[in-house]
């Protein structure tokens, strides 16, 4: 890869694979956090309260998902001690976001399969056309790169906070417009 000279295919595979795996961790994390941190706000059935759904989509989901998605990057940082350029960390972040998006989009598509295969395919297409997870994870990945280069976690915390805000704003807009 000419644009990313220090990147090895296994780095991309680790980022993508752990990104995909992190979808399941994020699902458990979101439900666990929602019912433990906001027990009074959460209805018995998730269909009952619009506010609970907005809280879940705008606050809890971005917080948990943005922490979970770069799982592979934490692994590359701690185990491989890879000496990568900042843009390569961002690219790995985007690949982690792609892995996450593939699994999440498939889960959403299977979730509406009762309405017919056509609905699932349109929903799958729509979700792949909006690469939010890749953008947000690229920012987080860049933060991990800055953390690796400087040894200061504050840069990672700042970048992941930006990606959480971006994700939350997108989810809020999508929830309001339907």
């Amino acid at each position: 890869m000419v644009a990313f000279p220090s990147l090895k295919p296994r780095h991309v595979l680790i980022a993508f694979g752990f990104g995909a795996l992190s979808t399941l961790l994020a699902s458990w994390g979101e439900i666990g956090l929602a019912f433990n941190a906001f027990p009074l706000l959460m209805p018995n059935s998730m269909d009952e309260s619009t506010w609970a759904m907005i809280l879940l989509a705008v606050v809890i989901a971005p917080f948990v998902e943005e922490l979970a998605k770069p799982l592979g990057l934490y692994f590359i940082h701690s185990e491989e001690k890879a000496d990568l350029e900042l843009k390569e960390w961002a690219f790995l972040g985007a690949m982690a976001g792609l892995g996450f998006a593939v699994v999440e989009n498939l889960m959403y598509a299977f979730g509406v399969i009762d309405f017919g295969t056509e609905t699932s395919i349109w929903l799958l297409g729509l979700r792949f056309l909006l690469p939010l997870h890749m953008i947000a994870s690229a920012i987080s990945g860049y933060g991990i790169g800055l953390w690796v280069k400087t040894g200061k976690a504050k840069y990672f915390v700042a970048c992941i906070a930006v990606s959480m805000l971006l994700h939350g704003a997108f989810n809020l807009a999508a929830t309001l417009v339907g």
Partner: protein
Amino acid sequence: MMALPKGTFKGLARVILPFSFWMAAGWYAYPYMIEKISDSMNEVIDMAEVELFSTIMVVFCIIAGIGLAIYGFTGQDPKDADIKILGKPELLCPYCGKALTIDVTKCAGCGKSIPK
């Protein structure tokens, strides 16, 4: 606290740039896709609202993409050493309390010499 060198985020801008235009294309197709989904689910949606929102998002994504392209492809990226220097331990100026890197001889805040 030392600031990041100028242009630190140029690499990030170049990585995100294609996704911005991808996102613009997605928002352009959004009303059509939403219409197809709502038809297949037999639901009624206010399409005027969806179309207005998607137009706003297309314009926003294109402007963001142009901004990222200008920022990412103009000027120079900072050297790796300029970023790694931020990892050096900091010390405080004994006269004014400004945070400095360990290798400075003069305070950038008050201008006084730093005793070794």
